[in-house]
């Protein structure tokens, strides 16, 4: 029972922070940057592992966030030197991910970090990977990390909601209003990196992307208002977590994979049925209009 509880709590925390950030990624047309960041944090984690000699959460957070920001910086640098944006993303994230994989494989004996876990996560084992502080067992480490990430996301979004909204909608206007657009850009990217690394162990590198983009895209089809979109996105994320966990239990499959697949199913349903932007309804309305 308690194992279920911790797994679900981890998944819910993860999907909440991913859902919030994902909305801004979608609106800023940076969905693939999110993809790039979530891959690029791997070398950060690996290096932090090497330096700290173990799963030190703080070192991993710092290392991964730095690498995430570095990847964003490199992508922008390539872009400004005339490389297409798609191609810049492709070059940087694969290169950084390759570095990460190489570090991990070369130190396989020293590092207790296995590649399968990097990709798929090990959410089933969160409960046993606890954080000991001053000799007392404080509960699963992932929950602490994700809780911290979610708190940071919520606090920063609440403090700077207006600024984030405006920079997402019209960066030029935001700059003209005196909002430090670049600061908020890197703040968002930093938050994405932090969330990626916190989610890393539970759902794995590739599935973080799914949780960043898919629930937010689902919410985007439900509403036209940013506030509601954030809410719906979190709800869609949490629903995917709970249903996905159930599906994984029934089919005896990867929990991370099931959660993302469920999120995808929710998206497809929305895509077809949403009252405002749903495909079927629009088709039906057109037919009525034509008749």
């Amino acid at each position, binding site marked *: 029972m308690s194992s279920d509880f911790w797994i679900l709590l981890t998944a819910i925390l993860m999907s909440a922070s991913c859902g919030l950030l994902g909305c801004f990624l979608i609106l800023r047309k940076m969905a693939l940057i999110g993809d790039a960041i979530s891959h690029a944090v791997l070398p950060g984690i690996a290096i932090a592992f090497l330096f700290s000699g173990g799963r030190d959460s703080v070192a991993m957070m710092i290392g991964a966030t730095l690498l995430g920001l570095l990847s964003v910086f490199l992508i922008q640098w390539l872009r400004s030197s005339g490389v297409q944006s798609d191609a810049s993303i492709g*070059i940087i994230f694969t*290169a950084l*991910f*390759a570095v990460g994989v*190489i570090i991990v494989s070369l130190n396989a004996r020293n590092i207790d970090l296995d590649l399968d876990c990097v990709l798929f996560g090990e959410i089933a084992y969160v409960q046993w990977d606890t954080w000991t502080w001053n000799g007392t067992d404080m509960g699963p480490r992932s929950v602490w990390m994700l809780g911290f990430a979610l708190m940071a996301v919520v606090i920063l979004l609440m403090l700077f909601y207006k600024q984030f909204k405006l920079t997402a909608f019209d960066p030029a206007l935001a700059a003209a209003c005196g909002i430090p657009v670049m600061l908020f850009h890197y703040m968002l990217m930093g938050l994405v990196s932090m969330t990626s690394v916190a989610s890393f162990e539970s759902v794995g590198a590739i599935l973080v992307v799914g949780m960043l*983009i898919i629930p937010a895209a689902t919410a985007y089809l439900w509403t036209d208002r940013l506030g509601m979109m954030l809410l719906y996105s979190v709800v869609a994320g949490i629903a995917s977590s709970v249903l996905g966990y159930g599906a994984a239990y029934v*089919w*005896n499959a990867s929990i991370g*994979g*099931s959660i993302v697949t469920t999120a995808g199913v929710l998206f497809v349903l929305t895509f077809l049925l949403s009252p405002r932007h749903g495909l079927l309804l629009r088709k039906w309305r057109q037919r009525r209009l034509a008749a």
Partner: protein
Amino acid sequence: MDALWMIWTDPNMRWIVAGCMLLGLSSGLIGSYMLLQKRSLIGDALAHAALPGICIAFMLTGVKSTVGFLLGALIAGAIATFGIRWIAAHSRIKQDAAMGIVLSLFFGIGVMLLTRIQHSGDGGQSGLDKFLFGQAASMMREDVYMLAGISSLLLLLCLLLYKPFKLISFDAGFARGLGWPVARLEQLMLLLTVLVVVAGIQAVGVVLMSALLITPAVAARYWTDKLSVMLLLAGIFGACSGFSGTFWSSMVTGLPTGPVTVLSATIVFAVSALLAPQRGWVGKSLRQRRARQQWQQGGTAHE
């Protein structure tokens, strides 16, 4: 030197090196066209989408058969590209987000199926996770034959259809105006990409396959303004990366082929971006500095 000699004498090694070089060559070629059509990341989506296709093929046949995997990946890739286009065309969601959705959804399904296969404890499943990062050493003679076949097909088509591929990449509207079957040709290019991606997954893996399509092509673009030269260079860069990847991964135990290949390609890219005479960073800044100096000298001379 000894190592190189070993590769030359060990027949198994020779096959694998040849396969990886062919793979690099073909992906450099077709990747250049994808780059010029602004579809760089489609390779990434295709590679990720291939995973559930491969898993389903395995579940249906129960054996690791290259042809079955190819077929499964091909179908999954077709569904994925169709899905991306469908979402972008029929909703307010933009192309990039559509790609992210399809990519992660397919990969999620793939991971689900993969774990299911693993949990079911099927005897032949051990090789499947090699698809994630690639292990060239696991390539069989049969796989190299397939790679050789795909590469020759690709080379032949690229030679035959050089002119239409070029025109479509530059100005598809004009080509359509000429009455050329642009949609068909575009599908053909996409099909070739899927073939290369699927063939490459064994060597470099799902996650990093897109790099072989993108990085050599971008690197080649730095050196030339001619498409034919760019294609040639991209092919060579890809082949070199393939060689270096297999070489180092065979030298150092535990080093997977894919990441080393990708890193080699990235190094070629970095060197190109810095040192290429016209477009490279060093050349550009030198020219800029010289221009500034000349301007300043000219300015003071006038005063």
